């Protein structure tokens, strides 16, 4: 039983899926982080331009 479990959890496909999962989550956080940063910049420049227009 234990042997079977060890075999299951050390199967190359399972290891690959774990690695891809870790890389996938990291990838999503990186892309989302860049998007957040760009929204912050867009908001900043947007409000600066609006203030200029008001002046």
């Amino acid at each position, binding site marked *: 039983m234990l042997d079977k479990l060890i075999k*299951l*959890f050390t*199967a190359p*496909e*399972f290891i*690959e*899926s*774990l690695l*891809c*999962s*870790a*890389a*996938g*989550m990291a*990838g*999503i*956080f*990186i*892309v*989302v*982080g*860049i*998007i*957040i940063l*760009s*929204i*912050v910049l*867009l*908001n900043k*420049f*947007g*409000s600066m*331009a*609006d203030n200029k227009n008001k002046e």
Partner: protein
Amino acid sequence: METLINIGQKILAIFDGTMQMDFTSEVIPMVVMWAIGGLLIYLAIAKDMEPTLLLPMGFGTILVNLPLAEMVGVISEEGAIKILYNAGIANELFPLLLFIGIGAMIDFGPLLSNPKLMIFGAAAQFGIFFTLSMATLLGFPIKEAASIAVIGAADGPTSIFVANELGSQNIGAIIVAAYSYMALVPIVQPPVIKLLTTKKERLIRMKYEGKAVSKRTKILFPIVVTVIVGLVSQQSVALVGFLMFGNLIRECGVLDSLSETAQKVLANLVTILLGITVATNMNAAKFLKWETALILGLGLVAFIFDTAGGVLFAKLINLFLPKDKKINPMIGAAGISAFPMSSRVVHKMGLEEDNQNFLLMHATGVNVSGQVASVIAGGMILNFFG
């Protein structure tokens, strides 16, 4: 007398194909599929569960499981449904066209006024990757496991696009699971949220500082996101590009009639064709197998762990925030892409705990970010396995 025999023979000939069917291997599966088709139609009409897709799909299921459907041209290469399948699903056109409509429907305002919320949209994709590992553990080949995992994107078009791109053999079951659980969000999410949060956490009030978002920002947002995703995650670019194109039509302010067409006519038209066409994969031989039950179970796992991922991440962030800036961890659950159900569920739960706690705008911001993040997650899966 001879004429009567002739008529009798002609009547029998009408049922010839049906009468030649083997009872156990053909008739029973056919009847079971009719029952499944009937169930989908019932859920769509009586329970209002994603009726726009489940109803055409239910009818399509009955249609493609009629006796000798393949021979009489329903799903043969020259048959109407197969032609539609090749024209819209096999080349992923329908999900992409549907994304134009979805993009035109979404107001990213709540997200743009508080962009930090987008991080919860990313966290709530955890269920996809957890399910990927679980499906592999259950013995599914890795590409099939990845197709199943994308049910956790809680986004029908993304599931169809990715499963099709990865050549999944279980696309029918994947689509049924994706749309069914999206409709079941009000039943699936609350127990998970309650299990992972304390009453004190659910009572946390969040101030809504509705910062005005300039029109320029709203117009530039879809363009910038498309460029970023195009540079960083190329496989997501078709999905994100069409979603953002729809949003640009909405926000530009000079294409109101196109925006309205995309939101209503285009989305409805594609949904009708998509629903009946995906049913091609709902024939007995492809659907009635033990993997289908496993896929439905894994779909539920994906939704549960998406919710858990969002909630737990919000709790983690709370550890580093000052007392007066704490986040109500329930909004993390809205990071799954089921829009707008998920944000409504969170808002309702907040009101149940405290009738003056209005979480809707925060939850909506997280929910629309979940829409973008789920598409990016689909792209990540394609990056790895496509």
